């Protein structure tokens, strides 16, 4: 049954990629610094899913995260965050190899070895000795390979994504050498999800307060963060207002 599920999910990911590729003529640049018209053909469904996600967050996830943040001292929070980040280093290594970034891939596997051997990944010793963390994933790899983002989608419970990045996440889930070899990996996935939610807790509170349209705000923030991982000179290339004399 599990094998069948894997095959089905892989087929879905591949077909997602095909759809994404078929849209690539709409948007040829890998990062597309145009935030005004993000391709969002299923907006009403996405809005409903986002409302559902906020509802689930309000009644279940947020209380857990708040309790965790209240109980856990700062070093524990940092340690947990480091632990989950360290588990992603092998898949980062694979992604960097696929991108042709061999130095970064050596750095990732080196970081994984050092941090796992010294503290099971809870302390980032590698950064202290000059091996800085480089973020990447299969979604970024696909983008660098010319796959456009495809439509924006909000995934139930998980949150904002797009077809390309979600396909990358699905493939990652099955090819990740670490979590594939851990028994009861579902618990690990839940733990990782809660940790990621805790990491953006303050930002989410600000979105709840300061936005006239939280859907648009989250969408824009999501694309800005993804583009920052793709663009070398992201900050320099962000659009700026025309100057009016005051």
């Amino acid at each position, binding site marked *: 049954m599990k094998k069948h599920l894997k095959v089905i999910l892989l087929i879905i990911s591949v077909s997602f990629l095909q759809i994404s590729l078929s849209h690539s003529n709409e948007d040829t640049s890998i990062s597309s610094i145009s935030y005004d018209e993000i391709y969002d053909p299923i907006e009403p469904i996405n809005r409903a899913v986002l409302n559902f996600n906020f509802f689930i967050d309000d009644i279940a996830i947020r209380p857990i995260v708040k309790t965790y943040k209240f109980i856990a001292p700062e070093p524990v929070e940092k340690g947990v965050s480091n632990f989950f980040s360290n588990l992603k280093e092998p898949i980062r290594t694979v992604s960097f190899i696929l991108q042709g970034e061999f130095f970064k891939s050596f750095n990732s596997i080196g970081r994984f070895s050092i941090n796992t051997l010294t503290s099971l990944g809870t302390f980032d010793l590698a950064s202290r000795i000059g091996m800085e963390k480089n973020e990447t994933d299969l979604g970024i790899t696909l983008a660098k390979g010319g796959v456009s983002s495809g439509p924006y989608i909000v995934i139930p419970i998980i949150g904002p994504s797009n077809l390309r990045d979600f396909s990358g996440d699905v493939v990652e889930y099955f090819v990740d050498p670490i979590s594939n070899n851990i028994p009861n990996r579902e618990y690990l996935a839940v733990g990782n999800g809660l940790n990621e939610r805790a990491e953006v807790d303050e930002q989410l509170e600000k979105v709840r307060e300061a936005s006239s349209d939280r859907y648009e705000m989250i969408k824009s923030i999501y694309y800005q963060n993804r583009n920052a991982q793709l663009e070398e000179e992201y900050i320099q290339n962000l659009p700026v*207002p025309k100057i009016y004399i005051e």
Partner: protein
Amino acid sequence: MKKIIIIFCLIFSFSTLNASEVSEWFEKESNLFLEIISNKEGTESENYEKYKLFVSKNFAIKSIAYGLIGESIINKSSEDELSLYLNVFTDYLIKTIYKLANSTSSGSIIFKDVDIKDNIYIIKSEISDKKSSANLYWKVIDTGKSFKIIDVIVENTSYFVTKKSEFNKILRKNRGSLKALVNEIQKI
């Protein structure tokens, strides 16, 4: 050849001079901002006035406000509508910064680096408190009289880009009505 070297040196020293001017301005204004944040003694309205003064002095409000709605809306709106929008947006910007500052515990803003592209200075800084730190970028223009901020980027999230997406959505939903946008801003 000598002339070329002299011209090159002049251009280089001019850009270094400007960069040092903008970094000086930044250090001065960021310290002032931290002073305002940490001073909790005054009444709420007194503190609000301090933020108002700070924002009016240091932000290119008109450029940001007009940039958020775009040329086509500016061209089709009346002077009165634009003036009302500018006032409401100014108030909104001050309130946003006021709220943000009140939810932040006092910390430090450390100047890191300054870069220039298309006559816009990009100041890289780091804001930190006891708990965490974040990269903070400021896009600044030189108006001739002073430096003015046109965008603030926290980690990778630009205030201008995020608000532009939000405002555009409201304008599209209301067939480009600036009045509708003003009403929405006032509701926040």
